[in-house]
């Protein structure tokens, strides 16, 4: 009896240990492949200069256009997604708390939006652009990517908000807060860690997506100065260089992936660090 329990515990522990480490192994392996191929092509020039003539034939230059472009685009889209998504998630969990059916319908639809290929978002964004008379530009890219990542942000955040005990809302309401105040000052804070996770997931999807911006953001060797100029992004730059006939250029694609990796790492570590500082208040 006892021994079986101990055995079961050891087994479960073993399995989950294996699972955790195989996930870690897979992830590190993937990063290893990227790094081993990309590091030798990585140089300061890659990071700090624009593509020069013939860059795509293995000539001089760098991918500064894509780095800055990705930064503009993903940060812009994430901000837009937060502006739309956070109130939406809070609305679902505070305003609609009694309306379980409505809540579930909204969740259902949002879940479905997760599964639509980003290409379709791209096509949708493109159609939208044509309607609005926009051409491929930073703005159009931001809007399209925001459309793509908002459902991710909302649902991932919502999943955490869902678990917050009602008593916490009761406490806030009984002090006379409105629903908005409760949502922003209490529920949001309690769900902060979840919000950061959701934010990073959405940001990750946004910065890593090539298909949705292919038609909407264009691709250019310049850094956009205004919102209506086309913009290059790292994933597109990677995509594009990977299809090059020249081996060195393909290596540069991996170098671009390495840059992207560091970029996300930076954002992730700082966001998580900040959230940790505030998350200590969370009621367990």
């Amino acid at each position, binding site marked *: 009896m006892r021994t079986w329990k101990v055995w079961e515990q050891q087994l479960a522990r073993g399995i989950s240990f294996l699972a955790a480490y195989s996930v870690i192994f897979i992830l590190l392996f993937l990063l290893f492949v990227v790094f081993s191929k990309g590091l030798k092509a990585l140089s300061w020039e890659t990071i700090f200069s624009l593509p020069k003539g*013939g860059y795509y*034939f293995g000539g001089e230059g760098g991918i500064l256009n894509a780095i800055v472009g990705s930064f503009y685009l993903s940060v812009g889209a994430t901000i837009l997604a937060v502006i739309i998504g956070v109130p939406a998630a809070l609305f679902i969990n505070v305003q609609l708390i009694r309306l379980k059916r409505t809540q579930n319908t909204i969740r259902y639809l949002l879940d479905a939006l997760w599964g639509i290929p980003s290409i379709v978002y791209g096509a949708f964004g493109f159609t939208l652009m044509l309607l609005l008379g926009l051409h491929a530009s930073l703005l159009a890219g931001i809007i399209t990517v925001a459309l793509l990542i908002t459902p991710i942000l909302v649902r991932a955040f919502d999943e955490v908000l869902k678990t917050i005990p009602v008593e916490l809302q009761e406490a806030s309401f009984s002090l006379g807060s409105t629903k908005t105040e409760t949502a922003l000052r209490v529920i949001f804070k309690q769900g902060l860690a979840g919000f950061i996770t959701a934010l990073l997931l959405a940001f990750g999807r946004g910065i890593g997506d090539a298909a949705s911006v292919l038609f909407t953001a*264009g*691709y250019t060797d310049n850094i956009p100065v205004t919102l209506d*100029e086309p913009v290059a992004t790292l994933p597109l730059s990677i995509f*594009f260089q990977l*299809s*090059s*006939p020249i081996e060195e250029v393909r290596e540069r694609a991996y170098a671009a992936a390495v840059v992207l990796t560091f970029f996300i790492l930076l954002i992730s570590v700082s966001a998580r660090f900040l959230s940790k500082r505030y998350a200590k208040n969370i009621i367990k």
Partner: protein
Amino acid sequence: SSGRKKEQTISLSGAFALYPLVVKWSEEYQNEHPGIRFNISAGGAGKGMADALSETVDLGMFSRAISPEEKAKGVWWVAVTKDAVIPTVNVANPVWPVIQKRGLTHDELRRIYVTGEIIRWNQLPGISIDEAINVYTRSDACGAAGTWAAYLGGRQEDLKGIGVFGDPGLADAVVKDEKGVGYNNTIYLYNVKTGRKNPGIEVIPIDVNGNGTIDANENFYDTFNQVLEAIGNGAYPSPPARDLYLVAKGKPQKQATLDFLKWIVTKGQVFVSEAGYVPLPKEVLDEQVTKLQQ
């Protein structure tokens, strides 16, 4: 002055295949004409066509044959360079020495790729090795596959084989599979700098006259320059050789655009080879110039 600025800016979008070359052209052109600004973005041939037709850009970069539907919509085009699709095979394939000598005829390629009648090497006369033929094709809708299919009398979706994404992908699949057969744009087969074929992959010579062997005039695959020459002078059939275009909706009105196009089909042609494409033959270039001057 903003109107003037617009007059002096040329925007292009479209095929990735043409993007590096157009970027190169634009830079060289800018050196000569400092007042001109370029706005070039890549996004695929389809996007180039769509943008050009909706007049969101001045010129679309386009890498396959222009379809009748597109022509019906009033597309205007200028051929700017040339490329070709060449069938390939793995170097380590035991059949390769034989193939090198006898080549494959149009009909044999068709029976491998379109009808699917030939699935083993020994079905071909003169070959006794009983091995499967692993056929690979492009999965993404693209100029290369379209052109290859056009040569074999079909459309891209008629091509048999495992679909692999992208030119490098297809080359890679053939390199990895000893029994593999595929096709590629020239620059994915040859190293532009050395002029040699990339390691692991070999060309299937086309037996153009169908006499069962590769004659001297059919044997031009050794170096890149030889192939380019053969494509240029028509010794290599077209299709699978093809023209690449810049397109617009109707003839462009903007003077800057017209000037740039004119420069491309004249002076600009010297930059074509280093990008791995084939300069257009003289008479085709002349045709384009006339088209521009009309």
